[in-house]
């Protein structure tokens, strides 16, 4: 369930960050790739948004362009639909059980004793 639009936006921002940082370091794609210990076409693929990098590649590429991973991930964020968390759970307050004679209800932070 990957949101394709956000995925593409993230990839685009990653690529533009990479291009900018590589230019700042004054390195060619090949040089950056060599430093990162990646195949010579990898940096080119990333800059053309043709490859979704994994954790290790992100770290390699950041070091390859002499930057911090924080700089490489600048401006990258994901909008999550937090309602999704509750959709498959019991609706808060809807379930009630009796524990030792007193009612316990479901709330977002877990089972809760009420009416004491």
């Amino acid at each position, binding site marked *: 369930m990957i949101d394709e639009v956000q995925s593409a936006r993230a990839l685009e921002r990653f690529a533009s960050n990479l291009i900018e940082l590589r230019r700042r370091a004054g390195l060619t794609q090949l040089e950056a790739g060599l*430093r*990162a210990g990646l195949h010579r076409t990898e940096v080119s693929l990333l800059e053309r948004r043709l490859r979704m990098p994994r954790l290790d590649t992100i*770290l390699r590429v950041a070091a390859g362009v002499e930057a911090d991973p924080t700089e490489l991930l600048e401006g990258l964020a994901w909008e999550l639909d937090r309602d999704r968390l509750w959709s498959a759970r019991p609706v808060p307050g809807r379930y009630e059980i009796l524990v030792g004679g007193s009612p316990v209800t479901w709330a977002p932070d877990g089972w809760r004793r009420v009416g004491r």
Partner: protein
Amino acid sequence: MSSPAERFGLLLACRRMRAALGQEDLARLVGIHRTEVALLERGGRRPRLDTLLQLAAGVECEPPELLTGMRWIPGVAEVRGGYLTGPRPGRPPVAGDRQRSAGDPAPLLGRFGANLRARREALGWTPDELADRAGIGVKLLIELEEAGGTIPALGLFLSLVGALGCRPSELLTGVGWAPYEIFEGEGTFEVLEDAGLLDEIAALREARPKDPPASIRQGGRAR
């Protein structure tokens, strides 16, 4: 030393519990299976960029926070260049089978000397005859054929070519010069060994709010 994926997993588990989320909750938020979250937290997966961003959003932290204490250290650069010699006489060197000898002229002289002798013997001349025609000392000629001495100067080389009546390239088959190239040694990942993080995870696990015991749930009734 642990891998970046393992440290990522610990950071994720720590952030998830700080956000008071179970693995199941995070899985639901991000839209992946619970076993996938468990696998990530055990360091068994290298998350893709988009998954990483989703997970960071799920545990409410900045994406780079999940990448702290790990980095790639590039290998040491090494510059190589040198004379090339082909694998067999008469065959020019090709990429893949070529042999480098950075700055060491011995392989070059060896191949040149072999070419020179082959050419002379093809004409049926003795070393003296060739030396005479080229106007050089026989001792020098023998030295060249036996791959001793230094790389011949251009004038000497051309006098041999002229005396043998061949093309310059015939004496140079199988030899060449490899341009300088930069090779990168293998780099490594450096991952912080973080006892504080392990302690915090253990403490968070301990403090995790628990569901009512199964006996209580069974004893209860839904209204």
